[in-house]
């Protein structure tokens, strides 16, 4: 297992509502827990992944995610069992949409 931590500042979209979880820690899949948290406007993402050594790819996926949503005061926790980058991106969007509704701004 490998644990990765990402933090993005200068978010614009604060989260509200109860924590939500989407996805399942099945083979090639992941669960994403998303919660509102007082982080001074930041979005923090913790990743626990079974696939060791893919930190750079996770970093790229997370930067794309932050560019799409620019979340503020958001904590995201991921348990991953070898999901591909595309699946990770879809799950992250699903998680955000479970709290905020479908995307209105940004370009996917």
């Amino acid at each position, binding site marked *: 297992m490998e644990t990765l931590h990402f933090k993005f500042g200068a978010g614009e979209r604060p989260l509200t509502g109860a924590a939500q*979880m989407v996805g*399942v*820690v099945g083979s090639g899949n992941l*669960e994403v*827990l998303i919660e509102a948290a007082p982080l001074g406007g930041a979005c923090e993402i913790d990743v*626990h992944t079974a696939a060791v050594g893919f930190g750079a790819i996770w970093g790229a996926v997370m930067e794309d995610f932050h560019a799409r949503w620019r979340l503020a005061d958001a904590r995201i926790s991921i*348990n991953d*069992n070898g999901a591909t980058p595309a699946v990770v991106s879809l799950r992250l969007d699903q998680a955000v949409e479970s709290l905020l509704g479908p995307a209105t701004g940004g370009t996917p």
Partner: protein
Amino acid sequence: MSSYLELTARQRIPAMFDAGSFEEFLPPSKRIASPHLAQLDAPVSYDDGVVVGRGLLGGHIVFGAAQEGAFMGGAVGEVHGAKLVGMLRRAIDEGAHAVLLLLESGGVRLHEANAGLIAVSEVMRAMLDVRAAGIPVVAVVGGANGCFGGMGIAARCANTVIMSEEGRLAMSGPEVIETANGVEEFDSRDRALVWRTTGGKHRYLLGDCQLLVADDTAAFRAAALEAIAALGAGAVGLTLEGLLAEQAMLARRLHDAEGVSEPMEIWRRLGVPDPARVPMLEADAFLTLAAQHRAGLPSDAAHTGEQ
């Protein structure tokens, strides 16, 4: 129609309970994950593969759980089992109208060894305690992973088992039998054979499952409501009389299956006229056919009592 089989545990809960009524105990945000998997450097889940809580079903307070088959095959670890047991005990404390268990599990999570074994036995005992308190317990088996091992036994500790044809219920799973006894004994890759020996239709014909429905969330919900309403009228606790009748039914079944290795032959002995047709029938047509030939029903006191 909306498939029950295709849903995750978290999607099944709102499909079965009254809209917006379910309150989860120990939700994922509490991060109560398996300490054993972490020690083994294996992925964990923040719900340890099971959703437990309390909601409304047909307006009544019903406690419930849904196992997630995609996380470690729905297998029961220490935390997973403790969540089930805690929910069952609370159902007694709060005088629940019923308990609804959406089961999908390979049984004990072998990574957790004795802790998992003890957890499953505690689940069984808690289910019987719930029944002893006069609260009906209904188990639903309709997920892709079926219900096997200790959870297969636990399912049969419920008053009523609801299945779809696609659901499977047994003790040892197909791969376990093949590994232990050889491919000549059981070919786990023969899917038709696997479903003939463990699938919902076989279980219904043998009397292990009391309600069979098509793989449809609305049909499962309607069956759960029907089962709980029927059970509400009678005694739901385990009785010596019920156990003896069950034992007699099992002895008769063993006798009836003497020397038979093919489920279709057992169906033929039950009087099903053209057993080869059974796997091809839709749920309604199958139920019409099965009505006259099911083992255990209606002559079997244990099962009529459970209905």
